[in-house]
């Protein structure tokens, strides 16, 4: 219900001392502005970092072979060994908690000498022998064609899926790479798929310089026997991958005559632990942002409350007149609380809008400049959070007005009338 007299009074009171109103409003404005910008930046940081994980299953562990450091069962220390195809079955039989088990081999690489040639063009890339299941652990964006499939593995087909950067370096700009042949370490392979990374920044450029071929093809073509480069294992939902990691290491030590106490022989990297650290870090940042933001907001709201106290004091006589003419305490209280809510909500809404605007501007500039930012992506705040912040403002405004309003009606009308 629109009540012109009420708004006239609010307008009058807020206009009477413009600088004071402005400074009070600024306190609330700044509080919510800071909250929005800090939360948005935290979100941007989080988006940026999580992008580095791509869509990779975060409950995964990598296990590879190193040199032994303890003499055991007649072997000296410093022995090198390789995992074998038989380990795959042994692991999956011994550890029911495994969801995906992807043995991988790799050939040569990145930053090395050129190993992939097509006509006059060549490049040095990372070459992996993979099972199709790998695409479930660390998915890529398939741009054209397909990934390795079971039949490729079974028939040891000489097919390969290449990264975007590989295509750029070996093919013409508009050329379709599918069904073309490239030479890898002297052997011809048919290109069946083209992919790009789901990550950003350096991680992405690393991914895009990869080639994937069937695991079996890789072993056979490059004379690896049945040696496996490393395992990539994920655990079933709800089971920490550390459980799988520990069991797998125990199984592998036993199978390869590694001393149970030898921690150096088996290399392993638990992505989940790293991911959890990251998640914890961002949770911490968020908590900090809320504490600081709410604190700043609270300071602004207390400012509003203080100013309302002063306003009520200044208007004591006027309120006295209104009460003499029949204004009930309810009318007076709701009038003062409306003033307070209007002041906080308006300035808060302004801060919210400006904060979101700033985040959008940063986002726009980031995208426009095309900077591949590894640490910062799509800053912004959740719509729900914005609504919650606004609700907090309205409630805070009401509370800020309540104390002064009660004070206004606690005076006897006659004392209010006599107040000079």
């Amino acid at each position: 219900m629109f009540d012109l007299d009420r708004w006239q009074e609010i307008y009058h009171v807020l206009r009477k001392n413009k600088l004071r109103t402005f400074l009070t409003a600024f306190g609330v404005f700044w509080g919510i502005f800071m909250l929005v910008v800090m939360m948005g930046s935290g979100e941007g940081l989080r988006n940026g970092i999580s992008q580095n994980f791509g869509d990779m299953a975060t409950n995964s562990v990598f296990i590879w072979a190193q040199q032994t450091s303890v003499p055991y069962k007649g072997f000296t220390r410093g022995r090198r060994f390789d995992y074998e195809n038989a380990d795959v079955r042994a692991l999956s039989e011994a550890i029911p908690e495994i969801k995906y088990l992807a043995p991988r081999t790799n050939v040569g690489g990145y930053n090395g000498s050129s190993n992939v040639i097509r006509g006059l063009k060549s490049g040095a890339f990372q070459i992996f022998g993979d099972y199709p299941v790998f695409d479930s652990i660390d998915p890529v964006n398939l741009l054209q064609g397909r990934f390795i499939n079971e039949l490729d593995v079974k028939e040891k087909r000489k097919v390969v899926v290449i990264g975007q950067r590989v295509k750029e370096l070996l093919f013409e700009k508009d050329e379709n790479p599918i069904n073309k042949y490239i030479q890898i370490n002297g052997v011809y392979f048919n290109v069946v798929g083209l992919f790009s990374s789901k990550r950003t920044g350096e991680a992405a450029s690393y991914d895009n310089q990869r080639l994937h071929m069937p695991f079996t093809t890789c072993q056979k073509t490059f004379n690896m026997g049945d040696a496996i480069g490393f395992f990539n294992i994920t655990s079933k939902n709800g089971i920490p991958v550390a459980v799988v990691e520990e069991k797998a290491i125990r199984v592998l030590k036993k199978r390869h005559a590694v001393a149970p106490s030898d921690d150096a022989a088996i290399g392993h990297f638990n992505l989940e632990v790293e991911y959890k650290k990251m998640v914890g870090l961002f949770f911490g940042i968020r908590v900090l942002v809320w504490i600081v933001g709410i604190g700043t907001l609270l300071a602004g709201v207390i400012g509003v409350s203080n100013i309302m106290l002063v306003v009520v004091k200044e208007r004591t006589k006027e309120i006295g007149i209104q009460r003499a003419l029949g204004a009930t305490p309810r009318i007076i209280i709701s009038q003062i609380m409306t003033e307070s809510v209007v002041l906080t909500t308006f300035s808060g809404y302004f801060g919210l809008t400006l904060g979101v605007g700033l985040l959008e501007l940063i986002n726009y500039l980031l995208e426009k400049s095309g900077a591949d930012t590894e640490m910062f992506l799509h800053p912004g705040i959740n719509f729900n959070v914005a609504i919650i912040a606004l609700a907090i403002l309205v409630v805070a405004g009401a509370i800020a007005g309540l104390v002064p309003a009660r004070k206004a009606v606690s005076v006897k009308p006659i004392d209010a009338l006599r107040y000079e």
Partner: protein
Amino acid sequence: MINISNIHKTYVTGNNKLHVLKGINLRVEAGEMISVMGASGSGKSTLLNILGILDNHDHGEYILNGIRIENLNERKAAQLRNKYLGFVFQSFNLVSFKNAMENVALPLYYQSVKRKKRNAIAMEFLERMGLSEWAQHLPNELSGGQKQRIAIARALIAKPKVILADEPTGALDSVTSQEVMDILTDINKKENITMLIVTHEHDIAKRTQKTIRITDGMITETVIN
């Protein structure tokens, strides 16, 4: 209309007790116009405030239009003031940011009368006061006499039973004072509204039907003019 008996009022400030009203008995009939005189500090304003339910009494009985005024909460008191009482103050007490018409209409606002309707009624009352062309002016653009006439219009608009005036001519020159008294006596006669006027000017008091004199918190004299 007003019936008070044995009213006592004591103000306590720190250790000091000030016994202001020491048993006042007064009966005012409907339609009477009474002036209250007394030296400053005699308690005449306190009496008026208690009659106006702006202050409460300690002992005694106050019956206004058949309603016993005792231990009212502020909401009820505000409603009674709005319905039965009109106030005219020495310093006019107009609301500074409202124009003449809105000031007059204020009591109806508290009765939740629609803005259009209450402004129309306010214009009628301003016309009666001869101020319709000043309706859109703010109080600080008006003279003292005009302000007091607006205040009287405001006191009248809710059709009260009693008008309580605390030194209504105290801030006006003698010519304007007489004009204001003309208006008040006119209203008293035509509308039969009961009036209590606190004053310390004899020529003002003489224009009422009855003058009571208060000395040290007691009624010491009643004169029929």
